[in-house]
């Protein structure tokens, strides 16, 4: 496991707002207990959703946006089980224990001329923060958002607000391209509009396919992965992913998604 500078911290953060922005999807604004200037796009926080002992573990959530003036950041989450259910019931004003910012984010320097962001489901949050950063750097990334149907497409409006028109891909064709996000990607490449780099976050199968396409077409590609996490800061070794070194693909190892990741170069990942 490679060394890294440790710049996370843990502390209480007040819930400034917590509202349902789409069925089962909530946007929560939290006062940051850490120095926001440390946070990089693609990093995440570990939140303790209950003072009690169930659920006993914290839950990881990507940082979706930051507001330096308000000293706050947001998370966008989907209710999938007990932890996120409890989170969704938490009233404004309550304080939550927050550990972050954690992990290795996206490499903004890679952006180049035509960066492409591909988000699936709750993969939107880290990519929205990345988009904001790129725009701030004078870039105009392309954005593709995918979902089962129109109602699953998150944050399209927010991307507009920062001047980015997100392309939509829906499996049922209820909005935008009918099919998977990778369908749009393949069209772009075959159409001679290959991106300078691909940043992506979303369901495993989607990331796998995005990575394959990028590698085949020799496009730099960074993927943000998930794993079930016990600690989130590199000590439990529970969140590992099988990886290899880019130049020596036969040298495999287990990397911690919370420490070496969650963002990996597509070529590092060994899918199982």
């Amino acid at each position, binding site marked *: 496991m490679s060394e890294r500078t*440790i*710049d996370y911290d843990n502390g209480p953060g007040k819930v400034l707002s917590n509202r349902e922005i789409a069925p089962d999807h909530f946007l929560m604004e939290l006062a940051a207990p850490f120095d926001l200037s440390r946070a990089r796009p693609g990093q995440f926080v570990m939140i303790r959703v209950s003072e009690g002992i169930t659920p*006993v573990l914290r839950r990881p959530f990507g940082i979706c946006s930051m507001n330096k003036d308000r000293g706050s950041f947001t998370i966008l989450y989907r209710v999938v089980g007990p932890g996120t259910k409890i989170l969704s019931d938490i009233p404004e004003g309550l304080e939550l224990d927050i550990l972050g910012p954690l992990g290795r984010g996206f490499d903004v320097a890679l952006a180049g001329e035509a960066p492409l962001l591909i988000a699936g489901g709750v993969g939107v949050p880290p990519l929205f923060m990345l988009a904001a950063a790129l725009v701030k750097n004078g870039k105009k990334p392309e954005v593709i958002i995918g979902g089962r149907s129109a109602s699953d497409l998150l944050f399209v409006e927010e991307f507009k607000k920062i001047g980015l028109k997100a392309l939509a891909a829906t499996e049922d064709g209820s909005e935008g391209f009918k099919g998977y996000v990778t369908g749009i990607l393949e069209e772009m490449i075959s159409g001679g509009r290959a991106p300078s780099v691909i940043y992506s976050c979303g369901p495993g199968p989607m990331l796998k396919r995005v990575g394959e396409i990028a590698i085949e077409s020799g496009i730099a590609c960074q993927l943000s992965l998930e794993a*079930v996490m016990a600690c989130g800061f590199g000590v*439990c*070794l529970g*969140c590992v992913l099988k990886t290899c070194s880019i130049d020596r693909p036969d040298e495999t190892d287990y990397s911690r998604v919370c420490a070496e990741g969650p963002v990996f170069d597509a070529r590092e990942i060994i899918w199982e």
Partner: protein
Amino acid sequence: MGVKPDLSVEIAGLKLKNPVMTASGTFGYGLEFEPFFDIGRLGAVVVKGLSLQPKAGNPPPRVVETPAGMLNAIGLQNIGIDAFLEHKMPKLKEKNATVIVNFFGNTAEEYLELSRKLDEAEGVHALEVNISCPNVKAGGIVFGTDPTVASKLVSDIKGCTSLPLIVKLSPNVTDIGLMARAVEDAGADAISLINTLTGMSIDIRTRRPRLANVTGGLSGPAIRPVAVRMAWEASKAVNIPIIGIGGIMSAEDAMEFVLAGASAVQIGTASFINPTAAIDVVEGIERYMIEESVQHFSELIAALET
């Protein structure tokens, strides 16, 4: 209450500032906790279990949450003794941490070779031998559940090192007192317990185990009642110090082990949930002693009235 309570305690000839240690595998090599508190303030830092060679560990998924606990099947992944001594040990010394090295072998020979290496190593204050990790088939379970095998191993290890030796016991046995006596007779300087209880969790939709390794080790608050009982039974069975481990989330939890007979405690899973758990327990024990007007921590060891 004027005077500050005295939390110091001596274990296996090792004088500790306070009775609170970290549990192996739940504190990494200590360095990830830098942002949270000064690890030099802890009674001791017990590092992630080390083997002769680096170990890749089990495939993921490696952890799953359970009611008031978690299962893990890390598979004893570690960087190996040499990398530890070269890269981690110096940093731990900088921090003036009292370092206890947890180690394991896949064969008796490996245990002995590790003991010799660690005996020569600089800055190692004591050894904790894991004869009980239930995760890896070859990783100790056989040693940890048979009194004869365990005692042979322990006495051989004692022959390889002059460092204080803590033997960490598995709870997956019929008679913990028997195991405790066996390792005491073999020369163990102290006993730490419990390691994880072997458990299993199944995804009923995929019909597959939630851990790639199928079974894993149960830790966290759920196991505390079993751990306290075993600390109590072990402390009645032997004269060497007991180090209590299992589901300790607070100083109150820690005190259950102490009253039951433990001279010190280790904080495990709690450090994942609350990174300052270990130091919080130190401060909480001090508060408890003030409230109970107890001057010396040692007065509380085995103070249970039955």
